[in-house]
């Protein structure tokens, strides 16, 4: 064999082998293609299946009633379903992304929530956490959360899956219920009203504290009793009648005033409100009775009734006439007193116009004015000249007041009438006498003034002439003659003083214009500058000197009179005069004390009378000073007093009222 052959043979083999290999490759690649194709097909269908399943899960997830969220270890929301977003107030995934649960936690629940987070970390889950969060609109929501931890491959917690449920409505309802229960409890425990609940047979079901206190029994007592056992026997019938009609559903609620019996046996008046509680079939289940103790009210009512009766009696029997008229002056009521005063019977007056019955034109006019006043709600009193039924005229004093009804509307007036005709006459008589008295006083004053001047003038002439006689004819008289002339001169001088005294006495009178406020000490200081104190007499002043409201001249006259008297009648080697002042409740008083001769007990009264003097030593005096003092003091409703002992001295005190 040649090598070509060999080569040829080898080449042929190789050709065959290559062909076979090619065929294998072809077959394989076709096979590959086919399986690839199949794979693509399968893959597609799997993809489709997976998509369908994912969608299914997503839908399930989204349509879950509860919210579902996953949180990372920072508490940030990484995943959420629609329900969760609705609960938290977010509308899309983007919005809620990155929300941290810590940030929306209610501040008061932070502590509480920490415990649950600890639970999660420790045991990998927690259940039934309820707490508040703020939703996207800052509304507070109550959430119930159940949480499970998410672990990584190394078993570390990297987050949690949380089911959240909105329990806000439930929570609110619970709170409302608690509140209304509380309210109910408050009503039941009301301090002023006793509450008892009876069943349909009248047996006690429940009572409150107040009811227990009202009756005075312990709670157990009631549980074996029926309602009527605690009622006053006389009231059982009407009470039971009411309960019956509530039982029959004729009425659902009723009020009754009745007496209950306390444990002590004593009855008390109460106002009871009984109401029925019915089931669906309108059958009575319970009676609810509210008991208000009205003993105090009853007592007050009774007192009011007694008082009213008392006043009615007074009004009916009083001498005063009572007349009630409506707004048109029509007589509504007149008491017996008014009937007697007016001469009309009640029937004759009822419904008639009071002014037509009793008044002339002038008086009618007055009453019309008064009616207008009354409409403004004013009360007052006035005098009216009226004509009785027998045509005789009388003066009435009327005190009128507006009359209102329950609603406060003016419905007329009430007048109290008093016949003052006699008083009027007396008053007018008194007024006349006052006037004549005033005139007489004025006359007297003028008389005193004129007389004193008319007497004074000739007296002055006599005195002047005698003194001229004495001077010019001194040599012609012997010693006795001289003495007689001297005596005549002294007498005329004294008479001149008397006349002067009468004049000042009659001119002492009260005059409002001359009243002023002054400080008594000022007047005294001024006065003391003008009074001559002899060497042997010392003056002492002590006490609080008040301010006075009177004619200052009068005050000056008072002090002057007492001090000059104290000086004049002082017979001691060391004469003392003390002026003091003070006050008690009603009076200011001034006292002038001396250590002079003193005044005999029997003369102490007389000394204040006119022309009374008890001057043994012929000192010049008109005897009118103390009469003036007395007149002034009495003018101001004051008084004068004297304490004296012969040889020891005297104290004159005068009192002036404070107002």
């Amino acid at each position, binding site marked *: 064999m040649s090598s070509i052959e060999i080569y040829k043979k080898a080449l042929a083999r190789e050709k065959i082998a290559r062909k076979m290999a090619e065929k294998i490759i072809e077959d394989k690649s076709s096979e590959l293609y086919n399986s690839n194709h199949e794979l693509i097909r399968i893959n597609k269908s799997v993809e489709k299946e997976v998509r369908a399943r994912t969608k299914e899960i997503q839908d399930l997830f989204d349509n879950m009633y509860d919210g579902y969220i996953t949180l990372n270890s920072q508490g940030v929301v990484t995943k959420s379903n629609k329900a969760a977003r609705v609960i938290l107030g977010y509308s899309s995934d983007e919005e809620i992304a990155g929300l941290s649960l810590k940030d929306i936690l209610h501040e008061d629940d932070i502590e509480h929530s920490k415990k649950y987070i600890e639970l999660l970390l420790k045991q990998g889950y927690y259940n039934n956490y309820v707490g508040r969060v703020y939703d996207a609109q800052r509304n507070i929501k109550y959430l119930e959360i159940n949480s499970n931890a998410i672990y990584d491959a190394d078993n570390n917690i990297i987050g949690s899956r949380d089911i959240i449920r909105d329990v806000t409505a439930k929570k609110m309802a619970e709170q409302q219920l608690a509140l209304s229960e509380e309210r109910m409890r408050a009503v039941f425990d009301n301090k002023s009203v006793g509450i008892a609940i009876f069943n349909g047979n009248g047996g006690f079901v429940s009572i409150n504290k107040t009811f227990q206190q009202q009756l005075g029994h312990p709670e157990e007592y009631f549980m074996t009793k029926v309602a009527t056992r605690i009622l006053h026997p006389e009231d059982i019938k009407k009470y039971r009648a009411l309960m019956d009609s509530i039982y029959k559903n004729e009425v659902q609620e009723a009020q009754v005033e009745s007496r209950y019996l306390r444990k002590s046996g004593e009855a008390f008046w109460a106002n009871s409100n009984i109401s029925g509680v019915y089931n669906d079939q309108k059958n009575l289940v319970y009676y609810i009775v509210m008991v208000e103790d009205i003993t105090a009210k009853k007592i007050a009512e009774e007192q009011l009734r007694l008082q009213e009766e008392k006043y009615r009696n007074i009004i009916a029997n009083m001498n005063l006439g009572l007349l009630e008229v409506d707004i048109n002056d029509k007589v509504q009521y007149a008491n017996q007193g008014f009937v007697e005063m007016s001469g009309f019977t009640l029937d004759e007056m009822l419904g008639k116009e009071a002014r037509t019955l009793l008044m002339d034109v002038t008086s009618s006019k007055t009453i019309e004015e008064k009616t207008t006043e009354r409409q403004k709600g004013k009360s007052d009193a006035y005098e009216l000249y009226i004509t009785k039924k027998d045509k005789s005229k009388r003066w009435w004093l009327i005190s009128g007041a507006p009359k209102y009804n329950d609603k406060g509307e003016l419905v007329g007036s009430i007048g109290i009438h008093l016949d003052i005709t006699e008083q009027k006459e007396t008053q007018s008589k008194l007024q006349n006498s006052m006037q004549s008295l005033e005139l007489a006083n004025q006359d007297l004053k003028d008389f005193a003034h004129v007389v004193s001047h008319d007497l004074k003038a000739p007296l*002055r002439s006599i005195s002047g*002439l005698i003194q*001229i006689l004495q001077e010019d004819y001194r040599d012609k008289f012997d010693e006795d003659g001289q003495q007689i002339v001297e005596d005549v001169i002294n007498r005329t001088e004294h008479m001149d003083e008397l006349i002067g005294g009468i004049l000042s006495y009659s001119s002492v009178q009260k005059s409002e214009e001359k009243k002023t406020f002054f400080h008594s000490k000022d007047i005294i200081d001024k006065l003391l500058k003008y009074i001559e104190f002899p060497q042997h007499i010392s003056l002492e002043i002590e006490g609080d000197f008040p301010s006075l409201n009177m004619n200052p001249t009068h005050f000056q006259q008072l002090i002057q009179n007492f001090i000059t008297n104290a000086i004049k009648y002082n017979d001691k080697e060391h004469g003392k005069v003390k002026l003091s002042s003070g006050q008690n409740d009603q009076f200011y008083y001034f006292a002038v004390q001396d250590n002079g001769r003193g005044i005999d007990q029997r003369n102490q009264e007389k000394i204040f009378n006119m022309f009374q003097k008890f001057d043994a030593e012929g000192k010049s005096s008109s005897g009118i000073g103390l009469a003036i003092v007395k007149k002034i003091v009495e003018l101001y409703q004051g008084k004068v007093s004297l304490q004296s002992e012969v040889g020891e001295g005297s104290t004159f005190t005068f009192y002036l009222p404070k107002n």
Partner: protein
Amino acid sequence: MNPLKNILLVDDDPVEYMKVSRAFKKLDIPNPLLHKSDGLEAKKYLEECTELPGLILLDLNMPNMNGFEFLTFIKADERLKIIPIVVLTTSNNEKDKIESYKQSVAGYMVKPIRLEEYEKVISTIKDYWSTSKLGHE
């Protein structure tokens, strides 16, 4: 005051004139003393006289025209109201004093009952008016 000026006494009581003129004499008052026994007479005199008196001594209580009426008349007369007037009266009445000064009298003297005192009053008037200047010297 000029010693030649008249002094006019208006008083209804002649005894008063006697007392005043005696006092003038005792006190060596050189002025002539004229006497009119009421306001009316004094008024008539003043209306007719050519030489006005240097001073008028005036009583208050007088018939026909009393002291106040006389004052009202004289103070309303331009020529006469320059004459100073001293009231010389027995009245110690507050009202009389006030009324007199309201009529612008130059003085108010209460007549004492004792002659010696009376003379003192006249002496006071003399002392004052022999020093005081008149408006119609």
